[in-house]
């Protein structure tokens, strides 16, 4: 291995990599997680609904999203969102939507299907007797969900929800396929400009590893803590 490597390229570009790239990645992860958990919880409630068309609709959506590759979903929304925008705003032509908004909508819709399955398991982990007693106390469906079932379900599933979020964080790197400037996209731009692919991609791998490993260690500790309370 002769050392034709030049790791100075990282020193020259790290401000750009983190200020542009990593902030895109982290913002996208945080917003898609929030949106995904909210929409996913609604989907889970729909799937468990006793109204047949509602549960079939939600089930179909979740299974569709879970059956096709994320890359294909990214392409779908990248081209579909401008048409939906035009339809909502009643414009005659497709609306221009930036890579960030397109990615945010994609990941919210896609991850919701995965968060839905987690929340469904969480809701089902709550004994039915609790629901019956809250109905007996005069609470309606929404009050029962918001005050009795969901807080417990959420807490039981917290480690799994966070693990899914780490996967989401890693998956946001796939926005590379629509040329968005996330952390990988920014690194790839520098790598191709300076012809330093080896150094940049190694650096990207190390950064992703450190963050993901750090977060999963925290989740494990949380899991041990919450496990002893039960």
């Amino acid at each position: 291995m002769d050392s034709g490597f030049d790791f100075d390229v990282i020193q020259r570009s790290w401000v750009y990599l983190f200020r542009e790239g990593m902030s895109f990645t982290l913002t996208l992860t945080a917003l898609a997680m929030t949106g995904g958990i909210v929409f996913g919880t609604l989907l889970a409630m729909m799937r468990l609904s006793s109204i047949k068309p509602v549960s079939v609709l939600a089930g179909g959506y979740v299974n569709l999203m879970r059956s096709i590759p994320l890359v294909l979903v990214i392409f779908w929304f990248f081209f579909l969102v401008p048409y939906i925008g035009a339809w909502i705003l009643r414009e005659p032509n497709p609306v221009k939507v930036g890579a960030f908004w397109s990615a945010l909508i994609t990941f919210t819709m896609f991850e919701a299907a995965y968060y839905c399955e987690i929340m469904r398991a969480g809701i089902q982990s709550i004994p039915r007797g609790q629901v019956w007693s809250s109905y007996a106390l005069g609470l309606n469906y929404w009050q029962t969900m918001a005050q009795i079932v969901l807080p417990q379900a959420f807490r039981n599933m917290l480690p799994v929800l966070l693990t899914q979020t780490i996967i989401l964080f890693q998956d946001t790197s796939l926005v590379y396929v629509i040329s968005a400037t996330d952390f990988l996209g920014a690194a790839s731009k520098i790598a191709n400009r300076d012809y330093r692919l080896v150094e940049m991609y190694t650096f990207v791998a190390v950064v992703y590893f450190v963050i993901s490993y750090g977060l999963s260690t925290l989740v494990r500790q949380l899991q041990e803590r919450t496990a002893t309370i039960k």
Partner: protein
Amino acid sequence: MNYNWHWKVLFETEPGGTGTYLNYLIVGLGWTLVTALAAWALALAIGATVGTLRTTPIRWAVRIGDLYVEIFRNIPLIVQMFLWFFVFPELLPKAMGDWIKQVPPPWGSYIPAVLCLGIFTSVRVAEQVKAGIQSLPRGQRMAGIAMGLTEAQTYRHVILPQSFRIILPPLTSEFMNVIKNSSVALTIGLLELTGRARAMQEFSFRVFEAFATATVIYLLTNLVVVLAMRALERKVRVPGLIAVGGASQAGH
């Protein structure tokens, strides 16, 4: 929404001249499947070994297994793809690296894609194998030793035959993940199903016809895999034992 559908595009000839667009996409499915199957074979071989080693009392083997799992679980798949495709040939001796870079397409993308997907998936298989072994009562291992079997014989005749049958359902979903994840190989130039749908969109400007067809092909593939695996699961099921994990696990 005003989008003019034009489904007949599927029967028009693609610019490469190999046949219709529909044929072009179906060849893409072929590439998706040969990539996924080769990666799956690799993943099962490595995953079963690493997963089993992590349950043995051999301390250094457990530690190496843990390290392997942590490394390949915490780097995004697309970054691993780039590492295999761009970085790996540069780290080898120059002559060997140059030889790898001259492998003609599509094998130049196919081989790194299979290695990458195989290793990425092996980590998840290893986790399932480990969980499957640990879900067996500890008494079985002790009974095996008490009967005079060696550690290796206990694994071979008592523990592994049961645990592999227990973890079949979670392995099914991992197999479907490999099929889906193989689409990431389009970033290193492998023209599998998603890559071809994208190429068709660029050639013909028929965006939604291309993606809708690819989506339907993926759904049909999934259906076939689910039905086949369900039949297999029924055949090898261990009465009274059910799979660990399942729905409440995070993943893709």
